[in-house]
């Protein structure tokens, strides 16, 4: 049954955008936890831990996000006999993926802090964890905010891949709307416009943060 594309469809697309945002938020949260661990492993004084962090990053970055989604959603029921919902599969896949990228970004930010700051902390008897917590991380956060916001924009757009495992977010809703209205151009223009409306302010914010931090440093 074909029906006209109308304001109601735009309304439904906007509703679906909520799930895009929800998935982005959860992926960012999960990715931050993983990313923090990976970044700390990468600057650890223990060589095997550094290698572990590096290994995680290269494995995850070397496999397409789409493959992670398929493996988790279709593979787990076959391999482990566990059925996972699209929500769980998407959340886990995006956390793994975001963890590798955020871990790599934040490693760079930690390493941007001069070695002498670590040494000054160590010389006062601070442990590695305390050096990180009180000396390195507070300084690295300033450096980390602009690229982190930049990655968040990537993440929003990449959540569209979750459509392939039936996760109904903005892109999937667009596909569904198109299948009943047969107005692909209109539908996807609206979808694209909504993505743009979500990402553009963040991009601008990231730019202005970069300017602020460059001036104040």
């Amino acid at each position, binding site marked *: 049954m074909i029906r006209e594309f109308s304001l109601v469809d735009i309304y439904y697309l906007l509703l679906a955008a909520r799930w895009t945002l929800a998935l982005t938020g959860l992926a960012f949260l999960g990715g931050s936890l993983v990313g923090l661990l990976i970044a700390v492993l990468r600057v650890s004084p223990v060589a095997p831990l550094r290698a572990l962090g590096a290994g995680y990053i290269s494995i995850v970055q070397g496999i397409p996000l789409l493959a992670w989604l398929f493996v988790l959603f279709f593979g787990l029921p076959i391999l482990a006999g566990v059925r996972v919902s699209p929500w769980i599969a998407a959340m886990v896949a995006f956390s793994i993926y975001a963890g590798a990228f955020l871990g790599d970004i934040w490693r760079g930010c930690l390493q941007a802090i001069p070695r002498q700051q670590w040494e000054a902390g*160590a010389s006062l008897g601070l442990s590695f964890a305390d050096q990180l917590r009180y000396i390195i991380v507070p300084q690295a956060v300033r450096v980390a905010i602009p690229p982190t916001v930049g990655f968040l924009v990537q993440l929003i757009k990449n959540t569209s891949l979750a459509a392939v495992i039936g996760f109904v977010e903005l892109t999937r809703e667009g596909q569904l709307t198109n299948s009943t209205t047969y107005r692909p151009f209109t539908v996807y223009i609206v979808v694209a416009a909504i993505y743009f409306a979500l990402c553009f302010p963040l991009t601008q914010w990231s730019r202005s943060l970069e300017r602020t931090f460059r001036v104040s440093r």
Partner: protein
Amino acid sequence: MSLVELHDVVKRFGANTVLDRVSLTVQPGEIIAIIGRSGSGKSTMLRCINGLESIQGGRIVFDGETVNDPATNLRKLRQRVGIVFQSYNLFPHLSVERNITLAPRVVKGIERDAARDLAARALARVGLADKIDAYPDQLSGGQQQRVAIARSLAMQPQLMLFDEITSALDPELTGEVLKVLEQVAKEGMTMMLVTHEIGFARRVATRLIFMHSGRIWEEGLAGDVLAKPRTPELATFLDAVLH
């Protein structure tokens, strides 16, 4: 009992031998000035004593504990060995008070108010009592270096290492830092300082060490060593520094 002992210490960076069987004993209360060309190993020697650099041979003992023994708790040891660096290395995101109180609070668990008192007293010793709430970037180089000294003093170390702490400063700022050093020396602190300030070394040091190509080339009372160099290397060095 001696406070610091170095026994045939060897330090290599790759194929480059920076310390070549260095032996040295420091008694409590001694003020040792270490001079020598850049690359002669003097800074590296200091950094080995608090374990910032690992050594490839020999043994370093501080107050009965072997620094280069993997079983030694370096964190505990470093609380008793202060070091001040050429580039100050203050924490730029923390106020002067927090710079000084961070380690006493985190490492020694001192309460907030007691820690502020401690910072105030340490700052008074370096003549900066009024800067307790300032941030490092609001201070001159000389003031930053004095805060760094206060930060080290606040840990109440048994030994203070000073690694060319005036080399990054203008002559007029050098003076204020040296005055503080002299004061700390008078209070009886055991000190080892790498310096290019020959006049200061002569005035304050109880012993002077001249290092050359990774070895202790000459040592003795500062006045004697400076007045009568026994080796052409020291004579050449003094000639270059003093003229």
